[in-house]
């Protein structure tokens, strides 16, 4: 899952950052006593597959990579862009050429200076088909010149539009104006890479004894499926402002076991809390329990494939709308999830930067009114006799929600639902190939902007597994890319999805976690949940 932010970027890049912009760092307040042992310990819900910034594709790994490595730009506690290895940048030629000036004192953990060629090497490596990075497509998304041809193998990686003018100047040429390009450099794929280490050790370069990194921390130990430790990197350019000396990560797969160990004081941060425990924890540990928005939406897409045994009645938008009306989202968020999630009536997550959530007609009705309307529409459509094929991946929570929803349909509309679950890989294949009427789905934003959600409903999108297709929507989303005011377009697209009931939005995610109040500096306001331990500090226990 990748995240980039667009908050205020247009203005930032227009002004161009200068060296005068303060960097962001741990900032103890007067009256606070720092703990003797500056350590931060946290729980990981799964083992990350790799620490290679160019190969990583998931969140747990990126959390660690963000401490080990540093890109051109970082984020502050609100998700705003602050300088990283680059001390400033300038955009020219209508946001198509970006020139980054790297700070002189940026160092790799072995003492080598971090130079512009380290970025060039890293970016070429990410784009090179021989690297086989699962996030290769991210390079294409950046619109860097020739990126599409390089990732497709039609051009050599050195044709990529990035160039080291000198050791401290990196020039990037884009094919299209991209005001938020600097924000994209906060993601791991575009971090620098230490060429001689990678060439010398190949796939083993991320091993503890080989790895050379340029972030605030270095890797001290790693035991897969057990945990890892990082220690402060003295070579880091801003090492003087780094308070936390040591990071310990514990891989604990079982949520309940993780909670017990958190309660025993074994670590400082637990995410997520076990399903259904959040209200209790909020009451028992009000200073520790947090719920923040997470940019993911939970939804049930309808299957629009022709000739896929989908009941005829589902091609009537009113029938689909009736099914959507009959789902009482409040029951799901208030009684099943109970972790600060929001009932959803549109697709794009409400907290997405710059997105004004439209109020859908359904939201102005009470559930009783929705049910009445659903029944009216249902009778109008001739009360079709349906047995819906519903697929989901095996999980207690998905089962609970699907069971409740199927009950609502049964009681209000007399619709039968056959729920079938399968493990992750099988479910993904089913969803891609059809043979269902509705499928449990969720989508997490790749970056903090509404198009990351709405693009999914375009005809050709790889994850449009309901195969929904609407010409007007496709056209609008294409226009949004160069539009001065994309918000208007997004509102219209949401309206199309709603009017067609292309899907049943269920809820917008929240991230629930426990955080030891001794740890200060957690970026609660950063909706992408990109945390940098270099900005934390630990106060002494009272």
């Amino acid at each position, binding site marked *: 899952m990748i995240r980039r932010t667009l908050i205020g970027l247009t203005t930032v890049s227009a002004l161009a950052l200068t060296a005068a912009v303060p960097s962001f760092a741990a900032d103890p307040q007067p009256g606070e006593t720092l703990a003797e042992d500056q350590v931060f310990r946290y729980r990981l819900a799964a083992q990350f597959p*790799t620490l290679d910034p160019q190969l990583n594709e998931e969140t747990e790994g990126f959390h660690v990579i963000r401490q080990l490595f540093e890109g051109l730009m970082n984020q502050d506690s609100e998700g705003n862009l602050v300088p990283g290895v680059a001390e400033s940048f300038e955009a020219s030629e209508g946001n198509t050429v970006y020139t980054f000036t790297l700070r002189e004192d940026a160092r790799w953990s072995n003492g080598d200076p971090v130079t512009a060629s380290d970025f060039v090497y890293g970016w070429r490596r990410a784009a090179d088909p021989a690297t086989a990075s*699962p996030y290769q497509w991210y390079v294409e998304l950046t619109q860097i010149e020739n990126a599409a041809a390089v990732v497709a193998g039609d051009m050599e990686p050195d044709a990529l539009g990035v160039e080291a003018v000198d050791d401290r100047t990196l020039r990037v040429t884009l094919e299209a104006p991209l005001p938020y390009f600097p924000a994209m450099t906060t993601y791991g794929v575009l971090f620098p890479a230490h060429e001689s280490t990678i060439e010398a050790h190949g796939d083993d370069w991320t091993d503890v004894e080989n790895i050379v990194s340029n972030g605030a921390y270095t890797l001290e130990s790693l035991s*897969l499926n057990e945990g890892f430790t990082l220690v402060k990197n003295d070579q880091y350019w801003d090492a003087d402002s780094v308070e936390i000396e040591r990071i310990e990560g514990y891989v604990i797969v*079982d949520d*309940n076991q993780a909670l017990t160990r958190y309660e025993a004081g074994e670590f400082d941060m637990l995410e997520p809390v076990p399903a259904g425990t959040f209200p209790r924890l909020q009451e028992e540990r009000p200073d520790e329990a947090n719920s923040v928005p997470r940019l993911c939406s939970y939804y049930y897409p309808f299957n629009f494939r022709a000739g896929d045994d989908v009941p005829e009645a589902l091609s009537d938008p009113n029938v689909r709308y009736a099914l959507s009306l009959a789902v009482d989202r409040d029951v799901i968020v208030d009684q099943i999830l109970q972790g600060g999630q929001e009932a959803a009536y549109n697709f794009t997550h409400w907290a997405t930067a710059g997105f004004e959530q439209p109020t859908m007609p359904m939201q102005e009705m009470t559930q009783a009114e929705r049910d009445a309307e659903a029944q009216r529409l249902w009778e109008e459509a001739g009360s079709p006799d349906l047995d819906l094929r519903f697929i989901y991946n095996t999980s207690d929570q998905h089962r609970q929600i699907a069971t409740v929803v199927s009950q609502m349909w049964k009681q209000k509309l007399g619709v039968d639902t056959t729920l079938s679950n399968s493990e992750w*890989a099988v479910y993904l294949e089913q969803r891609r190939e059809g043979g269902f009427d509705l499928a449990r789905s969720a989508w997490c934003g790749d970056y903090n902007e509404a198009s990351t959600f709405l693009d999914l409903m375009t005809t050709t999108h790889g994850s449009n597994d309901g195969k929904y297709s609407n010409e007007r929507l496709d056209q609008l989303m294409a226009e949004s890319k160069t539009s001065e005011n994309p918000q208007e377009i997004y509102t219209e697209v949401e309206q199309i999805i709603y009017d067609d009931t292309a899907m049943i939005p269920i809820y917008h995610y929240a991230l629930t976690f426990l955080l030891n109040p001794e740890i200060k500096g957690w970026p609660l306001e950063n909706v992408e949940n990109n945390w940098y331990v270099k900005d934390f500090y630990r106060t002494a226990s009272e």
Partner: protein
Amino acid sequence: MTAFVVRRLLIAIPTILFLIVLTFTLMELAPGSPFDSERGVPQYVLDNLEAKYGLDRPAWQRLGLYVWNLATDFDFGPSFTYRDRTVNDVIAQGFPITLTYGLLSGLVAMAVGIPLGITAAIKHNTWLDTLAVGFSIGASVLPNFVMAPILVLVFTLWLGWLPGGGWNGGQWNYLILPVVALATSYMASIARLTRSSMLEVLNAPFIRTARAKGLPMRRVILRHALKPAMLPVISYLGPTFAFLLTGSVLIDMFFSTGGIGQFFVAAALGRDYAIIMGVTVLYGVIVVALNLLVDLLYAWIDPKIRYG
């Protein structure tokens, strides 16, 4: 005897080969791919990944190559999930951990279970017998997935004596909870098996003869009764140790030991073909070896059994 061992080892080779072909076929048949993800990955990314891992070759070629690399270099290939590791790396990290707590659990289960069973048999129908039987029934209805959370609750959360998980290089205090959680139910089974088998042996004519000769009870038990009484226990221990050494998925997951079981489950769900194959072959070898060992132990204990 030597001929027997050699013959058994030779049979092991086609057994393992059959295991490889079977596992490979099952994986081929399972839907899904190691590179599946919720977002539809572009085709060029899939092509690159498949080329890198050789998945673009036909199945028979991949199988042949796999067996060849295994036979010549003992090379299990790269992991599909852990991009910077090979399966050999994963086994080298996980297997010693599993071996350590599995072996310890087996030894603890035997060290407690066998004396408990013998005591119960000797003191048949006394309060000691009732206590031992009660204890072993209690322990056997507490499988490790129940024991583990109870132990963590008591010793980590309430008492704060022991860490609730992790391995820390096998430091003793990290070992106690996983070993106890895993050993308990085996201990109970061993105790009950030993007790019933011992009771049977104690009623046998040769024991009556021994006692009639005036041998002290202690000597009768140790010298005459123990060995034959152990036969059913040993046939139980063979598969049990095979199971213990190949790791308990639950213990690995619950205590975050970094042992091999957790890798196996994650690999099965994530379609990491290389790890599934590697661990299956490893398990196969262990099971074959332990079965051989049990057969040899039989011959040592029971003079009536001869292998030629």
